[in-house]
């Protein structure tokens, strides 16, 4: 039995996951079952960070992966976003990096960034 805190929502249910059958108890919703079973086999996280932004009022663009990536890839993926430059205008959801380090996740813009009026 592995004891986990569910991180799907702020409620933070205390889960118990059977490491053989992957059966989950202690959850309050179905997402807890999905999270618990996955967390013991192949833990996944969403990466959120920033990239350099040019030709906008702000200097940084918030970005995130459009799906979860393997937890073990977080540091490498965060490092891979260093030095990446995005140029305004940008719309929320625009792809900044496709298939980030082969994870299958795209790095996408987190907000609109209009072009700076010169």
């Amino acid at each position, binding site marked *: 039995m592995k004891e986990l*805190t569910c991180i799907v929502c702020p409620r933070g249910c205390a889960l118990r996951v059977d490491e053989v059958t992957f059966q989950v108890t202690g959850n309050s919703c179905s997402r807890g079952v999905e999270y618990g079973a996955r967390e013991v086999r192949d833990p996944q996280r969403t990466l*959120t960070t920033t990239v350099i932004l040019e030709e906008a009022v*702000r200097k940084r663009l918030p970005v*995130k992966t459009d799906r979860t990536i393997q937890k073990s890839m977080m540091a490498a993926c965060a490092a891979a976003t260093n030095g990446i430059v995005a140029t305004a205008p940008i719309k*929320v959801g625009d792809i900044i990096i496709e298939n980030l380090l082969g994870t299958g996740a795209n790095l996408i813009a*987190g907000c609109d960034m209009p072009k700076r009026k010169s």
Partner: protein
Amino acid sequence: MNKNHVELAVIGAGPAGMAAALAAWESGIRDIVILERGSVPGGILPQCIHNGFGLHRFKEELTGPEYAGRDLELLKKTGVEILCNTMVLSISPDRCIDAVGKETGYLSFTADSIILAMGCRERTAGAILLEGSRPSGIFSAGTAQRYINIEGYMVGKKAVILGSGDIGLIMARRMTLEGAKVEAVVELMPYSNGLTRNVVQCLEDYNIPLYLSHTVTKVHGDTRISGVSITKVDENRIPIAGSEFDIDCDTLLLSVGLIPENELSKTAGVELDPRTNGAVVDENMQTEAEGIFACGNVLHVHDLVDFVSAEGERAGKSAAEYLKNGTAKKDSYILVKNGFGVGYTVPQRISTNCKTPVTVFFRVNRVYKKSEIFISNEKGEMMSFKRERMAPGEMEKIVISPDKLKSGNVIIIGARAITQ
């Protein structure tokens, strides 16, 4: 804006103010202005680039900028005017607003109704009497978050974080992902003040040690901070002699609490509650001052933006109701009080003629495992609700039906452990 009167003025374009303005618009009010001192709307959300927002309100997991973007999209479809770079200087009890704006210059106008949504600010090194020298490299966690996520400056390479509230935990992960080494998160209390899921995904994921019942007792360094002394504390939070150890660092982040920013509420003559440091409100979010409402972190510090927005909506609807019908002033009220184990309640009072169920928010003042929330009036206990776990870092809520308000002048909310 070039007039001397509006129907509704909202102070602050963070999540509370945006939700309040939207709700008032949807309730039929057509003359609304939001005054925002920052250069863009969104309040603190644009710098909160992590995800976890919006699960209640938008039914999906969003980052802070995405959440603010959703509200802005909704506002664009309305005629609500947002004035950025505009600082409100004072509000008088008869609802005259004085402000200065970058584009507008000096503004002075009256409002039929005002919604206070100014948010909160961080406690500082001075507020916690941090001992030792005052070198550079000491930041409040939110300031460091702004430097890194908005301005693009890294604040340091080797950090210690004092305080395990959510901002401290989020910044531990953020600093790590940006290549810094976070040596420790130090917490005075025997439990974290943040959400458990943040302890898991921000500290445990990155093997960052959390020292509970410890505090920073000395800052070392001359021009730049070079390290801190950390000491274990006893159950009365007094440092234990001989338990001190040093950690080298070039950065100290402070996540040591938030203070609702109520300077304007004071000029407006709004009564404040010393337990929340926010206004005293009724179930409609209306303050003691007629026509002035409050919502979000200026009223009481929340854990989740979704609840801030929900409170903003309540304030917006109530302000619209007030503008349409007026409110019978000097209603009689039932007082809501915090009983054993509970730190505060919001609202602090409920009108006796209230006909809808009232949601009361509160925080317990220590960690409880299997426990009960119990509601009583002067005649005795009326009902109780079971909880698996309660902690000061996680706001609780209960719903009181109007029939429970019929017999009595006071409602007391308490907490107790269930012993097996």
